[in-house]
C-alpha cells in the first residue's frame, strides 16, 4: 500500500471542469485519473479483448495480471460473467491517454472512504448470509461473478469524486411530493414509478421469504433480517440525514439565487435603463420628471403587486379601481402631468363602470390640457350604492355657462356619456378658482 501523498506531481493532467468546480480537496489519487469521471474506463493500450480488465487495473491500481485472472475466472465460471464483460465493454469509455505504470499504484480508500467500503462489504456479506439462510441463492456458479461485481461496485463508489456522488444521491434520495422546480416535473413520474416498484418488490420479497422459509427457521431469519436492517440504518442513518441537510441547504441557496436574479433583472430592465436615459438627457427637466414618474410607478407596481411593466391589468378580470388607475396613468403619460389618484373601495367593471372611467379619463385630460395646474387630484369611490369620481385641479378655471356650443368634449364625452348610463355629472368651476368635475353613477 502506498501513501497517496507521494503521487508524482510532474505533468498533472489538466483539471477537468468537474474537478475545477470542486472546492473541497479531492483525494490525491484522483489527480492521476486520465478521465474526467470517477467511473472506471477501458484501457487504450493494455488490452486483450476490449481492454476492460486492463482499464480496471489502471483505474484501481491492482496488478493487471491479477485483475485478468479474476476476470477470466468470472467470465468462464458462469453465464453472468460474459454478459457483464460485454456490458462493460459497451458502457465504459476508452481512456483518452495511456496510464504509465508508475501512476498505477494501489491507493486504498482512506478515512471515511475506507469506512464506507468496509461497511459496504459487511452489508454485502450480511445480505448474502441472510439470502443463503432463507434459501434464496444464486446457485453455485453465480456467486463468484456476483461477488466480483459487488466488490467492483463498492470500489467504484468509494473512488468516485464527491461531486458526482452528490449528483447520484440527489437523484436517488427523492421522495414523491418533494418540492421541486417546474422543469423537473417530468422526473416526478419516475419517482412515483420507483416508489411503486419498491413497494411491489418489498411485498413480493416478504411474501417469498414467508413462503420459502420453513416455520422452524422463521424466527431466526426474521431476526437476521431485522439485525441487518438495523445495521444498515445505524451505519447509514447519519450519512443520510447529513445528505438531507446538504440537499435542503442547496435548495435554499438555489432559491436565493433565483430571487436575486429576478430582482437584478427587474432593476436592470427598469431602473438602470431609466437612469441611463436621464444621464443622456439631463437638461430636459420635464422629460426627466416624466421618466422618474413612470419608473416610480412601474417599480411600485412590481414591489406592491400588479404587473411587471407597471401597467394596470387590462383583461376582463380588471376591476373598476384597476381601470381608474390605468386611466390616471394614461393621462399622466400623455400629458406629462402628475395625477394624484386616491381609490376607495372597488367594484366589478361592467359597461356602466367603463363609461364612468371613460368620462373620468376625459375630465382628467381636460384638466391636463386646459387648466394649467401643476397636478390633478382624482378621488374615486365605490360604495354600496354608487360609484363616484371627482376630478379636481387648481388651475385657471372657466365659466361653465360660457363654453361655446361647438366645444363638445365636456358635453358629449362627459355629461352625455354619464347621462346615457343614468348617472350624473356636475362641473364646478369659476375663473381663477380651479375646476372640479363630479361624476356619479348609482349602482
Amino acid at each position, binding site marked *: 500500500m502506498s501513501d497517496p501523498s507521494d503521487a508524482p506531481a510532474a505533468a498533472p493532467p489538466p483539471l477537468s471542469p468537474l474537478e475545477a468546480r470542486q472546492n473541497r480537496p479531492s483525494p490525491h489519487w484522483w489527480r492521476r485519473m486520465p478521465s474526467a469521471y470517477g467511473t472506471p474506463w477501458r484501457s487504450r493500450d493494455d488490452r486483450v479483448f476490449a481492454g476492460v480488465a486492463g482499464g480496471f487495473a489502471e483505474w484501481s491500481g491492482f496488478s493487471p495480471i491479477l485483475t485478468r485472472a479474476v476476470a477470466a475466472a468470472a467470465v468462464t465460471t458462469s453465464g453472468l460473467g460474459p454478459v457483464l464483460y460485454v456490458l462493460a465493454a459497451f458502457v465504459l469509455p476508452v481512456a483518452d491517454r495511456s496510464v504509465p505504470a508508475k501512476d498505477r499504484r494501489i491507493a486504498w480508500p482512506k478515512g471515511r472512504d475506507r469506512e464506507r467500503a468496509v461497511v459496504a462489504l459487511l452489508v454485502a456479506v450480511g445480505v448474502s448470509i441472510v439470502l443463503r439462510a432463507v434459501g434464496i441463492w444464486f446457485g453455485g456458479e453465480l456467486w463468484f461473478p456476483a461477488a466480483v461485481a459487488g466488490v467492483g461496485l463498492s470500489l467504484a463508489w468509494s473512488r468516485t469524486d464527491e461531486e458526482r456522488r452528490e449528483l447520484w444521491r440527489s437523484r436517488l434520495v427523492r421522495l414523491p411530493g418533494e418540492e421541486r422546480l417546474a422543469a423537473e416535473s417530468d422526473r416526478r413520474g419516475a419517482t412515483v414509478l420507483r416508489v411503486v416498484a419498491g413497494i411491489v418488490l418489498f411485498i413480493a420479497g416478504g411474501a417469498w421469504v414467508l413462503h420459502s422459509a420453513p416455520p422452524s427457521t422463521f424466527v431466526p431469519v426474521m431476526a437476521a433480517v431485522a439485525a441487518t436492517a438495523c445495521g444498515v440504518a445505524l451505519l447509514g442513518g447519519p450519512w443520510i440525514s447529513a445528505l438531507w441537510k446538504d440537499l435542503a441547504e442547496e435548495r435554499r441557496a438555489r432559491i436565493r439565487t433565483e430571487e436575486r436574479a429576478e430582482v437584478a433583472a427587474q432593476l436592470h430592465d427598469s431602473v438602470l435603463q431609466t437612469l441611463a436615459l436621464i444621464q443622456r438627457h439631463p437638461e430636459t427637466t420635464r422629460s426627466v420628471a416624466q421618466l422618474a414618474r413612470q419608473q416610480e410607478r412601474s417599480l*411600485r*407596481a412590481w414591489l*406592491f*403587486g*400588479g404587473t411587471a411593466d407597471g401597467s*394596470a391589468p387590462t383583461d376582463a378580470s380588471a376591476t373598476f379601481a384597476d381601470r381608474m*388607475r390605468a386611466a390616471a396613468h394614461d393621462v399622466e403619460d400623455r400629458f406629462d402631468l*402628475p395625477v*394624484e389618484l*386616491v*381609490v*376607495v*373601495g372597488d367594484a366589478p367593471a361592467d359597461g356602466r363602470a367603463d363609461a364612468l372611467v371613460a368620462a373620468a379619463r376625459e375630465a382628467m385630460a381636460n384638466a391636463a390640457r386646459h387648466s394649467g395646474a401643476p397636478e390633478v*387630484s382624482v*378621488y374615486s*369611490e365605490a*360604495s*354600496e350604492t354608487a360609484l363616484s369620481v*371627482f376630478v*379636481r385641479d*387648481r388651475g385657471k378655471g372657466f365659466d361653465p355657462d360660457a363654453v361655446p356650443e361647438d366645444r363638445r368634449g365636456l358635453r358629449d364625452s362627459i355629461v352625455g356619456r354619464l347621462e346615457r348610463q343614468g348617472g350624473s355629472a356636475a362641473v364646478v368651476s369659476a375663473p381663477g378658482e380651479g375646476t*372640479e368635475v363630479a361624476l356619479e353613477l348609482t349602482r
Partner: protein
Amino acid sequence: MTSQVRVFLVDDHGLFRAGVKAELAGEVDVVGEAGDVDEAVAGIVSTEPNVVLLDVHLPGGGGQAVIAAVAPRLPDVAFLALSVSDAAEDVIAVIRAGARGYVTKTIDRAGLVDAIGRVASGDAVFSPRLAGFVLDAFAGDAPVAVDPELDALTPREQDVLRLIARGYTYKELARRLSISPKTVETHVSSVLRKLQLSSRHELTRWAADRKLL
C-alpha cells in the same frame, strides 16, 4: 416668526435627509437627524424637538419603534410620518403607534412646512392618500361594534375625509362645508383619535387583506 419649530429628521437615506434639510432651511430649525432607530431615539431624547419627521421604513424596527421608545419619555414630541410607501398597513401602523399625520415624500416644500407647523401646534395632518386609506378602513358596517363611538366615523367626518381625499386643503374644505377651519381641525383630530384607539378589527386586519397599489 418669534421661535422656529425645532425639527428632528429621521430617514435612512442620507441623500433624502440632506434634501429635506436644504428645503426646510430658514423655515424651521433642524436640530438633528438620524438614520436608524437607535440613533433616532438617542438623538430625539437629547435634543427634545417639537416635531420629528419620521420615515415609515427604518432599519431596526421601522418608524413605529421610534415612536414606541420616545413617546412615553417625551409626550410633547409630535411625529409626522413621511413615506414613499403605498402599503396601507405600514402607514396605518405608524399612525396607530401615535404619529400625528402622514404625508408622501413627493410633497412640495410649502406643503411640508405647512404640515410641520400644523403638527407642531397639535393638529393632525392627513394627505389625500391617508384620507383614502382611512375611508376604506372604516367603510361598511362594523360587525361587532365594541365601542360604537370609536368604531365608526360620523357622516361629517366622512365628508371631511372625502374632501381631503379629493384634494381640498383645509381652508377650501372649510369654505365648502361652511364651517370654520378650526372645526375642520377638530374633525380631523377626532378621526385620528379613532384611528389610534378604535378596536375595529378591520383596522388591524384590513390593510393586510387588501392589495393597494
